[in-house]
């Protein structure tokens, strides 16, 4: 199988049994806590995993997702590898399983998600582009808040944005409860004026 995966490539130059023995040795060392051998192993198996993943997936991005998923799974189940057995079938089984899982997930998603390119278009009427405008408005508001005096900004963030009680905000900021009330009031008044002026 490996000869077909790497025709004339690294597998052509290196005997399959030898390669497996090397991977198996690295894995055994990794199980004993040798991080350098583990890194060598993970880098060494990448081409093999990419070829296996491409067999079940055409999209290169999705293939790389599968490869990363296999690496994470290998990391979690590395204690199940028995160095007395060949490494390649163990790895291929993990890759196969994760490829099937990815395929199932994709089919499941496709069954309830609809790809509608028009949904991302904006409308001619500016009032209809609320979603898009909301982001712009949030940025503009953040810029206005940043211009407030620091005590007012802090009071506004603690009481209105983080929704703390006046007592909690007082403990967090060191401002008195009365001071917080005044600063929140002044901050809101200033923002109303500036929003009105900018419109």
């Amino acid at each position, binding site marked *: 199988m490996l000869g077909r995966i790497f025709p004339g490539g690294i597998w052509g130059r290196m005997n399959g049994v030898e390669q497996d023995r090397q991977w198996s040795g690295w894995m055994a060392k*990794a*199980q*004993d*806590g040798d*991080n*350098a051998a*583990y*890194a060598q192993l*993970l*880098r060494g198996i*990448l081409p093999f995993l990419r070829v296996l993943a491409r067999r079940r997936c055409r999209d290169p991005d999705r293939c*790389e997702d599968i*490869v*990363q998923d296999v*690496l*994470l*799974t290998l*990391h*979690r*189940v*590395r*204690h*199940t*590898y*028995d*160095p007395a*057995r060949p490494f390649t*079938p*163990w790895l*291929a*089984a*993990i890759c196969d*399983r*994760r490829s099937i899982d990815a395929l199932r997930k994709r089919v499941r998603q496709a069954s309830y998600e609809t790809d509608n390119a028009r949904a991302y278009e904006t409308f001619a009427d500016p009032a209809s582009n609320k979603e898009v405008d909301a982001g712009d408005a949030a940025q503009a508001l953040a810029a206005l808040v940043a211009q407030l005096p620091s005590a007012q900004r802090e009071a506004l963030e603690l009481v209105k944005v983080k929704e703390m009680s006046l007592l909690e905000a007082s403990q967090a900021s060191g401002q008195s409860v009365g001071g917080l009330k005044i600063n929140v009031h002044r901050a809101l008044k200033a923002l109303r004026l500036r929003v009105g002026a900018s419109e």
Partner: protein
Amino acid sequence: MNTDGLIAELAASAPPVKRLAPPMTRAFVWLLAVAAIAAVPIILLSNLHVWAGRASHPRMALELAATLATGIAGVIAAFHLSIPDRSPRWALLPLPFALVWAASTGLGCWQTLAEQDKRGWGLFQSSDCFVVLMIVGIPMAGLLLLSLRRARPLQPRLVATVGAAGVAGLAAFVLQFFHPFDVTVMDLGAHLAGLLVLFAVLNLSARLGLAGRA
């Protein structure tokens, strides 16, 4: 994150791990532990003399052997399937024994029905069978789940299903020590209900417990 970054992160966070023993060893250790635990109530509470008398009947002996074999095969298969590189064909291991078990029980039930027409439909102690199956099976299922979790199976559903078949077989085998009469139709119904509940409980808990761990 790109793959090179992921590799660097994984390699940096890879402490030594304790290798799992071969699945056959783990299965036998588990079976021995369960046998030792189950032996206590069997010796203390069951009537072994009556059991031996019933087991001397060829059909009953076949049923007992098939029940035990289904349980042992299911457990061995579940431990093998929990390791990534083992063939999915291990899942078929308990099947022939389960078929013999089902056929033998069905035959016994039919004979009881034919010989004792009214008794064949009697409820008698069928509810006790259900209770015994639950008392024996649920702790056994919990023990199996705990042992299988260590392998973090890649196919939790398959492992759970095969393991549930194994536990059902073992629980049914233990039940026979507390079942000093032939199986009636109602008995068979209670046994089936008990095994199905046991199967469903283990399957569900195992899926929840095993899923997402690998």
